């Protein structure tokens, strides 16, 4: 599904945010991505949806080398991936409904279908009662759930979530992760960056761990080494 081959990322000279990463993420699986603050989790995710370009190395998604995707076709990649951003990236002056509908509107779906999908996502994250609130008028945790609902709404084949429970209490975190599990059961690949070791322990999924940009543990490490 996702393959990293000797991927490096340098934002500034002499310092690597991502260093020689080889990684294979398999279709339909559920992964945690963990590591200390500044380890490179967000950077790794950004490389997947091509918000950042690798300094060196190749990244394959769905058998496509994303380095070779021209910017005109980039939207095709992005439509495959549902993203929950660490900083939410919501339109705070629009309603909750409008925010969740964006990926669907952008795909040109019919109003009635959009309505249905948004309602679905909203009830999954338990925010039906906030549907028509302006997004700046809801609490931090509620905003985070709106971000999750938006990522789910577009029917992606991969879901990437960057600290999706950072603003949620333990119970809600577990509930949200159960939602991700449910989505995963439908065959969607899930990759969640988190620093919450309790959650990782509780759900015992495959875990990828970064340390200062380097991969220090990965469920498919042996396989990786076999490739090269």
């Amino acid at each position, binding site marked *: 599904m996702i393959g990293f081959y000797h991927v490096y990322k340098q934002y500034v000279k002499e310092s690597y945010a991502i260093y020689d990463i080889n990684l294979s993420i398999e279709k339909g699986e559920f992964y945690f991505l963990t590591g200390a603050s500044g380890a490179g989790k967000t950077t790794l995710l950004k490389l997947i949806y091509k918000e950042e370009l690798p300094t060196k190395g190749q990244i394959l998604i769905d058998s496509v080398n994303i380095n070779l995707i021209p*910017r005109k076709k*980039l*939207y095709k990649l*992005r*439509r495959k991936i549902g993203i929950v951003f660490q900083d939410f*990236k919501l339109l705070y002056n629009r309603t909750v409904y409008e925010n969740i509908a964006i990926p669907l509107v*952008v*795909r*040109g779906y019919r109003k009635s279908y959009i309505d249905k999908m948004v309602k679905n996502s909203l009830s999954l994250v338990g925010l039906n009662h906030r549907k028509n609130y302006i997004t700046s008028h809801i609490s931090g945790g509620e905003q985070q759930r709106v971000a999750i609902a938006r990522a789910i709404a577009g029917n992606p084949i991969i879901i990437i979530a960057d600290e999706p429970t950072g603003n949620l209490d333990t119970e809600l975190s577990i509930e949200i992760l159960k939602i991700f599990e449910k989505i995963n059961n439908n065959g969607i690949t899930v990759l969640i960056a988190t620093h919450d070791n309790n959650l990782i322990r509780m759900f015992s999924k495959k875990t990828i761990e970064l340390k200062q940009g380097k991969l220090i543990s990965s469920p498919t490490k042996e396989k990786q080494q076999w490739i090269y």
Partner: protein
Amino acid sequence: MDLLKKSLSNAINNILRNKLINFLCLGIISFTLLTLGIFNYISYNLEIFTHNFSKNIEAIFYFKNDVKEKEIKAQISKIRKSLLVDEVIYKSRDEAETSFLSQFPELKYILTEFDKSPFPSSIEIKFKQEESNLTTKIISFIEDIEGSDIIESKQVNIDWAKKVLYIKKFISITGIFLSGILFFVSVFIIYNVIKLNIIYRKEEINILQLVGATDWYIKFPFIIEGALMGLLGGIIAGILLIILIKLIPSYSDFIINILKDIISLKKIPLKILIRLLFFGTIIGLISSLFSLKKFFKK
């Protein structure tokens, strides 16, 4: 089609949402277009002016004394064939004498001394007015006839026509030049305003890109918005132009006289320049104080 409809409603919404910036932009566009419009208006009126002028072009050709009737007849029929010509009036030598006498009967005693009419025979040509570009053609036509060796002299108000033609040419050239410059200026300004709009909505664009919008989906509302703003600017400029042109003539004499008196002096006193700086600063101060006041109200 659906995208167009959505983009149009999006654009209108955006124009309404960012009222302030779009208000400014509209003002600038209107002003630029107004200048273009004024120029166009001047060109147009000059064209009418030169066209009207050709209406007044009448040429009288006097034949040489020894020219035969036959030659004259041939010349006249040749002239009649021209599409430019409306009417050709032939005056023989005798007719010329008769008409002279009817105007100045008291001078009859002078003419009795000649046994033949002392006036040359002549043709008077009146030109048609329908055709465009008439004046240029008429000028070359007249010069053509003048070249004929049976013509003694001509009498024609062509010099004025030539002058006007030159002015028109001059205006056209400077017009194209000026329009070009203004065009680039307005493109530059609107370009910057829309860039401002884009920067203003950078976050939104970024999000749209990240959730899989095509470039065109994002671009379209901006394009529609640009076009819409241009159109609105055009409408406003048009209205202003009409008002301006209806107003100016009432004050035209007054304005021109004053302009004349004033233009001849060309001293700018330091006082005015200093006053400009002072006023600028004061205006800036007052304005910023006002806008802050509103923001800092509880």
